[in-house]
C-alpha cells in the first residue's frame, strides 16, 4: 500500500463489491448467478480484511483472507453440486420454483413472469461406455 492511498479507498472498494453482491443476490433468480453474487460479497469482506490488516500493520486479516479463499473454494464445489441436483429435479435454475419449505397452510407465491425456459432441453451429459459392465452377484438378505 502506498502511503498516499489512504484506508478509506480500499474500504469503499470493499463496500461497493459487497453492495453489488447483495443487490445481485436479491435481484437475480438464477441459482448460479446468486451463488456468484454471494461469492462477490465474500470478496468484498476479504478486501476489507486485507486493508485493515495492512493499516494496522499485522497479519491477522491476511490470515483470515487466506481461510476465506480456501473455504470459498470448498463452498463452490459443494454449491455447484447442489445446484446441479436442483437443476436435475426441476429442469430449471429458477430459485422461485423451490417453495416447499414454507409454513403449512400457506399458499405458494405464483410467479407472474417466470424465467424463460429454453425451447429444447439440454440433455444431461452422459459418459460414453467403456468396457463391459461386470456381472453382479445376487446378494441374499439375511435380515
Amino acid at each position, binding site marked *: 500500500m502506498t502511503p498516499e492511498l489512504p484506508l478509506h479507498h480500499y474500504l469503499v472498494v470493499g463496500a461497493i463489491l459487497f453492495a453489488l453482491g447483495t443487490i445481485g*443476490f436479491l435481484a437475480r433468480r438464477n441459482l448460479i448467478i*446468486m451463488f456468484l453474487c454471494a461469492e462477490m460479497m465474500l470478496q468484498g469482506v476479504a478486501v476489507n480484511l486485507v486493508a485493515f490488516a495492512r493499516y494496522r500493520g499485522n497479519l491477522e486479516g491476511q490470515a483470515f483472507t487466506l481461510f476465506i479463499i480456501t473455504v470459498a473454494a470448498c463452498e463452490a464445489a459443494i454449491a455447484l453440486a447442489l445446484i446441479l441436483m436442483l437443476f436435475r429435479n426441476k429442469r430449471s435454475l429458477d430459485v422461485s420454483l*423451490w*417453495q416447499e*419449505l*414454507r*409454513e403449512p397452510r*400457506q399458499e*405458494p*407465491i405464483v410467479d407472474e413472469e417466470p424465467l424463460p425456459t429454453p425451447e429444447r432441453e439440454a440433455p444431461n451429459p452422459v459418459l460414453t461406455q467403456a468396457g463391459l459392465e461386470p456381472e453382479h452377484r445376487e446378494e441374499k438378505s439375511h435380515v
Partner: protein
Amino acid sequence: MSDVSYLLWLIPALPLAAAFITAFLGPKLLRGQSHWPCILGAAGACVVSVIVFWAVYSTPGEGKPVQVVSYYTVFHAGAVNVDFRLRADALTALMLVMVTFISTLIAIYSIGYMHGELHSEPHGERQDAHGHGHGAAVPPGPNYGYPRFFAEVALFIFSMTMLVLGDNLFILYAGWEGVGLCSYLLIGFWFTKPSAADAARKAFLITRIGDVGLFLGIMLLWVGSGFHLDYQGVFDNFPHDPFYVTLACLLILCGAAGKSAQFPLYTWLPDAMEGPTPVSALIHAATMVTAGVYLIARCTPLFVQAPVAQLVVACIGCFTALFAALIALTQNDLKRVLAYSTLSQLGYMFLGLGCAIGFGGFAADGRPQAGPEATAAVSASMFHLFTHAFFKALLFMAAGSVMHAMGNVIDMRRFGGLRKLLPTTHWTFLIGALALSGLPPFSGFWSKDEIVGAAFVAGHHSFSFGAVYYALFIAAMATAFLTAFYTFRAYFLTFWGEERIPEEAGGHAHESPAVMTVPLVILALFAAAVGAVLALPPWRLFEAFLVRTPGFVEGPQSPPEYLLMGVSAVVAAAGIGLAYWMYVARPGTAAQLAHAMPRAYLLSSHKFFVDELYDYFLVKPVVGLTQFLRIIDQYVVDGLVDIVGNIPKLLGALFWPIQNGLVQYYALLMVLGLTVFLLALVRYR
C-alpha cells in the same frame, strides 16, 4: 446374658434366603420340592430362636437381659440416623419362638394342603359361603402356584421376624409393611378369582389407613424424643407431657388397630379368608394380626403414661371382642366363624393391654417403667397372644383339613357328622375349640382368665375410670360365654349329627395325609398343655419370664383369684352346654330362635351391616368425589393446559406469512434487519 450377636441375624436371614431360592429356582428346578427351602429356613430360624430364648432365660439374677446388636447404618442424613439394629430381650424372644415354631408347622402342613397346586387343579374354586359358585380359572402357568406359595410364606416369615427383632421404629415399620405386603400377596394367591383379588385389595387398603397413623406416630416419637428412633432412646427422651404422650399412643393405636383388625378397621380380616387356609392360620390368626398387640406391648412404657389412651385401647378391644362374637354366632362359613373369633380374641388382647394401668415411675437412670399391675396386664395380654397363636392356628388347620376332605366346601350347612370320617381332625379341632372356649385346663382358659382378671384389677385401681373398667370386665365375661357358644356351635354342626358329605368331595372323602395331621397333633398338644404349664400358680413361668423385659417393674405376684377362675370356667361350660342343647339335643331350636327374633338374627348374620354402612358412607362418597374430580380434571385442568398451549400457537400465526419458503425473501429480510441494526448503531453510537 450370653452373647448371641453372632446368631441373631440368622433368624431373618434364613427365611429370606429361602424366599429367594424358592422364587428363583422353584418354577424351573425345584418344582414339587419347592417346600424344602421354606421349611428348612423356618426350622433353622426356629432353632436359632430357641437358642436366643435360652440365652435370655438362662441369664442369672434379677436383671433385665437385653442384647442390642448394631450391624450397619442403613442411612444417615442429617438428624436421621437409621441403624440396622436387632434386639434380643424377653418380649422379642417369646415372639420369635412362637412365630418361627408355628411357621415351621404350617409350612409342613402346607405340603399336603397345597398339593393340588402341583397338578394345576382348579383349586381356587372354593364354593364360598354366599354361593357365588365357580368363578375361577386356573392360575396361569403350570405348577407355578406351588413355588410361589412357599416363596411368599418364606418372605412373610422374614418380615415378621424383622418386625419383632428390630430395635428401632424404622425397622419395625419396614417389617410391618413387609408383612402387609405378604398378606396382600397370599390373600390374593388365587388372584384369578375376583373375590380373592378384591379381598386382597381390601386388606391392603384398610391396613394402609392404620399405617398412616402409625407412620405419623413414629414421626411424632422421633421428633419428640430429640431424633431418636431406637426404642430405649424414644422411651427415655420423649417428653412426659400428657398431651403429647396420649397423642403418640393414639397414633400407634391407629396402626395397631389396622394391622390387628380392631373395631373401625376390622372388616378386612373376615374377607381375608379367601386366601389358602394355611395362610389364614399363619398370617391371619397366629402371627401377623398379633403385630399390633406386640407393638403396643413394646410401647408399654409410653402407654402407662397415658391413661386416656389406655382406656381407648381397652374400650376398642372390648367392643371388638363382643361385636365379633355376636357376628360369629350366626355365620355359616366355618372359616368365617374362626375369623370372627380371631377378631374377638384380638379384642381380648387389646383389652388386656388397655388394662395395663399404673405408671411405675422412673428407674434409677430416668427410664419410665410400667408398674406391677400394668406388667401383670401386659403379661396377660401377651400370654393370650401366645396361647391363641397355638389354638387358633390349630383350629384353622383343622378347618383346612375338613375343607381338604370335603372338596373345598366350607359351608357348615352342607356337611355334618364328620367325627367318624375324620377322627384325627375331630380330636384336634375339639381340643382347639375347648382351648378357645376357655375351659380348664386347656390353654385358653388360663390366658383369658388373666385378661378378665386384669380388667377387674384395673377397675379396682383406676382413679378416674374405675366404673368403665368394671363395665368392660362384665362385657368380657359375656363375650367369654358367647365365645364358648359359637365355637361349639361350629364344632357340633361340623362333627355331630347325621353324616352329610357334599358332592364336591367326589365320594372319596377321607382323613388328610400324615403330613397334615402330624402338625395338627403337635399343635393340639401345645394348645392343650401350654397354658397350664406356663401359668400354673405359684410359678407362673410366663409372667416371670416376661417381666424381665426392660421397662417392666416386677411386683409381688398377686394371689390367684380362685373365685374368678371358677366363674369363668362355669361361664365357658354354660356356653358349651347351651350349644350342645341347641344343636345336638334339640336340633330345631336354633331355627326356632332365629324365627322368634328375626331382626336380631338378620343383624348378626349380615355382620351388623357394617360393610354396607362403610360402602354407603365411605366408599360411595369417595367414588362420587372421584367422579366429580375426574370431570374437573378433564374439563377445567385440561382446559387450562390447552389454553396455555394455544396462546403461543395463536401468536405464532401472526408470523406465518413470513415463512413463505422463498430464499430471496428471507435474504431480503436479513438485509433489512442488518440495515436497521447498522442505522441504529450509527445513530445511537
